[in-house]
């Protein structure tokens, strides 16, 4: 049975629906990330699981115990759910030293002084904060404050970690370092983690499963690779990946196994796809699935370089063909320049096809069962 079970959870703020009928289960040991643009309700979900926000309806169970149920009138208070939470702002108490901050939870559990000191020391050591216990939070750097917040959460040994955009206030370099720290924490402590972020790289690198939210609705919850390779809707395909996926409108021609995708900018065979003849679809191709070649062979189509955006380890090349601009990811540097005439070579495999009107996934080309 899942460790955390959420059924029919709904929360409105005034006339705005923050979370709409959410159903989600999280297994023990999972690292689930709630990912979505700001205002999509992901933080609200976290706060409802923590017990800081009262849902309007629905049910939350943790380890088989109902901690919230609107029907039964149950709401277990935040401190009694066995949950640790790291806030986006860290929420360190400015009038307490680091040591007092970390010890607070143990104090409430009435842990004897000696034992408490040992546990606080352990937590500080673990977060590499040895010797900083007597400082006040304001006297520390952002990264150190983050470690204190993590130490404060760890010290009471909760079964579940909740983290609300914990890295968003750090600079890029520290963020990378703390990302590794959090991954280590999850592996070593083995605690089930729900992590909120709007940074998709963070989500894809940290999680065992990513749940994508849109306007209060859960759109897809899958392992990162599946989210990237097999998005269930155009929204997810478009949201994940940087630069964004190339979306090309067109229609399906033919029947049986030899289907053909026909768009204004290009035509592709769609092996393994099952769709009716004449269906209007959107083909989605990742920028790294397109190659730039210098001569026309094997179905490559001509285009003109529109812009070249080098970024060190890779270069994004925008190529215009007819009225469509394709994003192409090229490893390393390129000698191309705007205005150059090039040819684009498409591999028919791993192209995702979506229903043009509904935005739902029809299938992924090249996979016998439509799966990669």
């Amino acid at each position, binding site marked *: 049975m899942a460790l955390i079970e959420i059924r029919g959870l709904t929360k409105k703020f*005034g006339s705005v629906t923050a979370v709409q009928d959410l159903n989600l289960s999280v297994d023990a040991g999972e690292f689930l990330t709630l990912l979505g643009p700001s205002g999509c309700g992901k933080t609200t979900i976290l706060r409802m699981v*923590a*017990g*800081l926000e*009262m849902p*309007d*309806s629905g049910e939350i169970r943790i380890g088989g115990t109902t901690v919230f149920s*609107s*029907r*039964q*009138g149950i*709401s277990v*208070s*935040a*401190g*009694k759910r066995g*949950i*640790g*939470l790291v*806030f*986006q*702002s860290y*929420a*360190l*108490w*400015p*009038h307490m030293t680091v040591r007092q901050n970390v010890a*607070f*939870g143990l104090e*409430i*559990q009435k842990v004897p002084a000696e034992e408490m000191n040992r546990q606080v020391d352990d937590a500080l050591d673990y977060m590499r904060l040895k010797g900083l216990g007597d400082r006040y939070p304001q006297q520390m750097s952002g990264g150190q404050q983050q470690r204190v917040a993590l130490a*404060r*959460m760890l010290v*009471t040994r909760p079964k579940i970690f909740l983290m609300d955009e914990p890295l968003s206030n750090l600079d890029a370099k520290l963020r990378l370092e703390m990302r590794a720290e959090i991954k280590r924490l999850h592996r070593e402590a083995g605690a089930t983690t729900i992590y909120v972020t709007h940074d998709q790289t963070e989500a894809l690198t940290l999680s065992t499963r990513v749940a994508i939210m849109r306007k209060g609705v859960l759109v897809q919850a899958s392992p990162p690779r599946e989210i990237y390779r097999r998005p269930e809707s155009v929204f997810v395909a478009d949201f994940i990946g940087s630069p964004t996926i190339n979306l090309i409108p067109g229609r399906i021609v033919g029947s049986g196994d030899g289907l053909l995708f026909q768009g204004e900018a290009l035509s592709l065979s769609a092996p393994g796809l099952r769709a009716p003849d004449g269906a209007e679809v959107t083909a989605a191709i990742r920028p790294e699935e397109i190659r730039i070649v210098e001569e026309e062979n094997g179905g490559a189509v001509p285009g003109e370089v529109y812009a070249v955006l080098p970024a060190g380890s890779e270069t994004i090349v925008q190529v215009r063909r007819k009225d469509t601009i394709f994003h192409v990811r090229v490893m390393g540097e390129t000698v191309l320049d705007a205005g150059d005439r090039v040819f684009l070579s498409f591999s028919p495999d791993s192209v995702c096809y979506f229903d043009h009107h509904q935005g739902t996934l029809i299938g992924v080309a090249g996979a016998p069962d439509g799966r990669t």
Partner: protein
Amino acid sequence: MSPRLRRWGLKLRQPHVILGLLLLLVLIGLVLVPFLQLIHDTLVYQEADLRLNRSAEPGAWTFFHYKRVFASALSRNVFYQPLLNSLATALATSFTAMLLGGLMAWLVVRTDMPFKKTLSLFAVTPYVLPSYTLALAWLDFFKNERIGGATGFFSFLFGVSPPDWLAYGFVPIVVTLSLHYYPFTYLLVSGALSSLDSHLEESGEVLGASRIRILRKITFPLVLPALISSFILTFSRAVGTFGTPYFLGAPVRYFTLSTTIYTSIINRTPAMAYIGALVLILISMVIIYLNQKVIGEKSFVTIAGKGLRRQLTPLGPWRWPAFTFVAALISLAVFIPLLLMLWQTLMLYPNDYSLGNLTLHYWLGKSQAAVAEGESGILRNALILGAAWNSIRLSVLVALVTGLMGILIGYAVVRGRKTRLAALIEQGSFLPYLIPSIAFGAIYLALFSRPLGPLPPLYGSFLLVVLVCVAKNLPFSARSGISSMMQVAGELEEAGMMAGAGWLRRFRRIILPLTLTGSLSGFILAFISAMRELSLIILLITPKTRTLTTMTFRYVEQGYSQFADAIILLIVILVVGGESLARRIGKSEMI
């Protein structure tokens, strides 16, 4: 139980909701119930009315009191004339105070007048002093033979006693109140002037307008809302003030509504006092409403982040005259009166200004049968020391209780943001602001002079004096509590919830330490206002609960100006000490 009810049950269990409901009850008890009692008392016969009307049945409903106040042979003397006097003094005071304060603000903020820093430091001091300080100083200077005791400094200097119109009544009331209230306008207008975007004026200059024209056409209209607002607020305070019109008006039977309320209570016709109080409250409400309208419609967005480098208007040959004017004003409002009062307290026999007459008797002297009916100096006088102890006890208690109430209100309002309960508490805590002090005292007298259910009457107890001061201070403490609570991010408390801390522990360990520094200046202001309070508590004080201010009142009535002045100076020392402490802590708002 239906799910709907269950959900309500869950919502009700949140601490800010429970606290909010409790606070609502407290507000109802402190403000609404006394107010309704006051209205009730104006509509029924009381025991005392048997003297006036033999057929009266105590407790029966009647319009008797209203007829007596509004439409009887007495009406002119007990209502219409005092009403007219109140309006006249308040109007003249607000107008004079607005002119003085506005001019001073402009000179200090926007011109190159010399010694601006020093002057601005003292500019608000008059407002910190008890409002009737100047009235007592005025009496020390202008007193004539009309009331008992020695005549003032004026007769000593010129050998003639000043005429009644100069010594008592309209003129001195307006002058002393204006000098007390001008800091109001000064603060509001200098605030508006310093936040004014100077580009607005500079663009006028670029277009070739003259300085005077810019002042008239651009600056003046932009600060007009602040001016009107200060006029209205000064009016609302002046119309309800008690000490000054009583000290300066009573000797010539020049009564205002506030002094009529007091005398009606003394004459045991409380219902008439209560009707007077209702009229005062009505006037106050109209005024506050007008103010809201003015602020709502006429406030310009003139505040810009930049524009700090301001062009000062050169006064040219007027620099020193301007300085002299402002310095003289401040001297007249603060230093000369205080020095005169100090001198008075050092004279063994009144009206003898020779050096040989100087003494510390009224401060430190032992009882002498020949002087002041044997009363000893104030620092030796058990009665006065008792009153001083009461004053300090009262001020400290009021500061602590209002401070705590403020934080609790802040908590309930900020945590319950956007709920109806929070809005109700925020508005409810503002209500005492609408009720003039003397009327507020009357309301408490109406409710607490009788037993309340199983409780004995609170009248005569120290607790009642504390309660009335706490209630009257609520608007300020609530505002300061709300703003300091806003500074404490909700997540800081939620982090405590996650750690499993219950509400009391979160409040004690997290909320209180974090809001305390923000509320400290609020504490000190409550301390000051309780220390100098007279209008609010004069009706509720009994010999047992005397404070310094009511002792002053007693000594003035008995004609012992030395004692009265000495006590005032004692209050001034305590209040100025408190104020400079508040100023050091900073962020102190004087309004």
